[in-house]
């Protein structure tokens, strides 16, 4: 104790020195408090107060982030708790922008439902958690962030609980999520046992892993992957996602399918970049496991999507399939070369948001999300379905959309690795990745098939929220433009 006290002031200096780099997150925390207060006291006078505060906070946070991004800040703060680098900054920007769009989406879609102030607050903490996730390399910090994100997500899914499906989805989500978190925690405890250190990129941490006994570290790593897998919903931890995506309100599904994945992918790529740099039992094991998981995830996601009748459920499987592609990218991620990954993440976010906006727009007209009910609607709202089809094409990964460029870049990365290492696993990844693109055509094209190729059956009013449709169309346009001129975005990262 006494040995410790002389350093306290310098420690506190370091804390204070870290704070300026923490501005974006601090803004989020303050906005969170502001949103709570607004929802408690102000929303009854003007029901858009909390919304306005949230938007303002997100924008402000975005401004700080932009500043960080432009000045290429690279720093370590809070005693190694956070590592800010351009990768994390860009990822946080994508997260913030997506959250911004989703906030608007929520506001537009649910303005007549229950008071939304609390939801914005929860959304903000989720964003905070995600931001931290992209920056931290400390298991404690990571676990807290993951839990923050998870619990916010549970609350968001159950927020409206206006029908059976929503509450069922929320319950399944929370139980499944907590179990995975508990398993991950067990894995973390083992990792801690191997190394006595919580920083995954620390030298001693890796040294501890290197000498760890094989059986136990295999268990630990797989338990760790359980927690990450739950967030990313890759095989075999994907089973919750179709139910939850289908049951949750569409806006929340949009969020779940898009934003958390960005942060977790960033985390996983940093982790793998740190660990796979050495070649020992644990890293080979991990690489092998990830390859197998990626392959099965792509296959399972796409195959299971084939038989789906519900658009949201289908999109859940589709996002599982995309997770497989993302895992490919993560596997070959190397330090300081984040732009391919970021490009795909950005595109992925754009595509998902657009798709869910379209699904939602149709849902608000039709009252359900069954693909069957889209029959013949292509003629009645051609603009919407044309844009929808374009986005689906991007999801398949066909030119001239950005989805294609993203896939191409990832394939390129993997191919390059393959060329260097001649590993069969990477080749298998490539082949399966290509194959599943073909399979994905089947189910994605069910939607245009029903909309354009079949004849109309029911009544359809065709009215839609102009702002949301505008956002959807903007995303679509971006998807096409970025497909033609990807360097605009790529060079920005």
């Amino acid at each position, binding site marked *: 104790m006494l040995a410790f006290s002389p350093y306290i002031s310098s420690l506190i200096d370091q804390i204070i020195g870290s704070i300026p780099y923490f501005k974006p997150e601090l803004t989020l925390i303050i906005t969170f408090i502001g949103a709570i207060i607004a929802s408690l006291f102000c929303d009854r006078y003007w029901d858009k107060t909390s919304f306005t505060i949230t938007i303002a906070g997100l924008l402000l946070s975005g401004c700080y982030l932009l500043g960080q991004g432009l000045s290429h800040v690279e720093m370590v703060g809070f005693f190694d708790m956070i590592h800010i680098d351009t990768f994390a900054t860009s990822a946080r920007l994508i997260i913030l922008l997506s959250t911004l769009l989703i906030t608007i989406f929520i506001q537009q879609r649910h303005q007549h439902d229950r008071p939304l102030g609390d939801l914005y607050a929860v959304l903000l903490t989720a964003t905070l958690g995600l931001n931290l996730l992209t920056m931290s390399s400390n*298991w*404690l910090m990571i*676990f*807290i962030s993951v*839990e923050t994100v*998870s*619990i916010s997500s*549970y*609350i968001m899914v*159950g927020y409206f*609980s206006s*029908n*059976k*499906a929503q*509450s*069922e*989805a*929320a*319950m*399944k989500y*929370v*139980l499944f999520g*907590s*179990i995975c*978190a*508990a*398993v991950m*925690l*067990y894995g*973390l*405890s*083992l990792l*801690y*046992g191997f190394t*006595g*250190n*919580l920083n995954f990129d620390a030298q001693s941490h890796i040294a501890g892993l290197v000498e760890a006994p094989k059986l136990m570290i295999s268990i630990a790593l797989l338990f760790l992957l359980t927690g990450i897998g739950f967030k990313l919903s890759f095989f075999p931890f994907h089973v919750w996602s*179709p*139910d*939850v995506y*289908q*049951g949750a309100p569409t806006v929340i599904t949009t969020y779940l399918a898009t934003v958390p994945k960005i942060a977790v992918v960033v985390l996983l790529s940093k982790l793998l970049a740190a660990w796979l740099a050495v070649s020992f039992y644990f890293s080979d094991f991990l690489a092998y496991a990830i390859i197998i998981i990626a392959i099965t995830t792509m296959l399972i996601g796409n195959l*299971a999507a084939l*038989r*789906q*009748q*519900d658009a949201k*459920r289908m999109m859940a499987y589709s996002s599982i399939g995309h997770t497989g592609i993302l895992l490919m990218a993560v596997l070959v991620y190397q330090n300081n070369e984040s732009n391919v990954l970021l490009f795909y993440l950005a595109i992925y976010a754009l595509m998902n948001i657009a798709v869910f906006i379209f699904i939602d727009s149709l849902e608000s007209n039709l009252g359900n999300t069954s693909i069957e009910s889209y029959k013949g609607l292509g003629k009645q709202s051609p603009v919407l379905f044309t844009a929808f089809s374009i986005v689906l094409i991007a999801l398949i990964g066909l030119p001239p959309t950005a989805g294609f460029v993203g896939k191409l870049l990832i394939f390129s990365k993997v191919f390059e690795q393959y060329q260097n290492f001649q590993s069969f696993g990477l080749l298998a990844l490539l082949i399966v990745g290509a194959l599943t693109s073909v399979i994905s055509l089947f189910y994605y094209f069910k939607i245009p098939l029903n909309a354009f190729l079949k004849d109309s059956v029911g009544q359809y009013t065709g009215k839609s929220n102009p702002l949301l449709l505008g956002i959807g169309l903007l995303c679509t346009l971006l998807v096409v433009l970025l497909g033609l001129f990807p360097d605009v975005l790529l060079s920005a990262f």
Partner: protein
Amino acid sequence: MITLTHFLVVSACIFCIGLYTVLSKKNAIMILVGIELMINASILNFVAFGKYDKVSYGGQIFALFAIVLAAAAVAVGLALVLNVYRHYKTINPDQINELKDK
């Protein structure tokens, strides 16, 4: 002499019992209990290892955070389970299966 192995074996047992609970009990509350058992097993690991980490106290602090997080998760989880109960009048997870591949 209580060695590390003692702790590890106990925690492995508790973890597996938790897992079993989670997998087999037909009551959502019991599943939450199972989760808590698993978390407790992890905490036991943490404190057991934390004994050798006097510098940063990583184990014990992690354990403390884990307890807090688990408590919060249980609160939210219970709220959601009760929500389901309002709609379904049951909390048997087997009967809450409206959402599935049709």
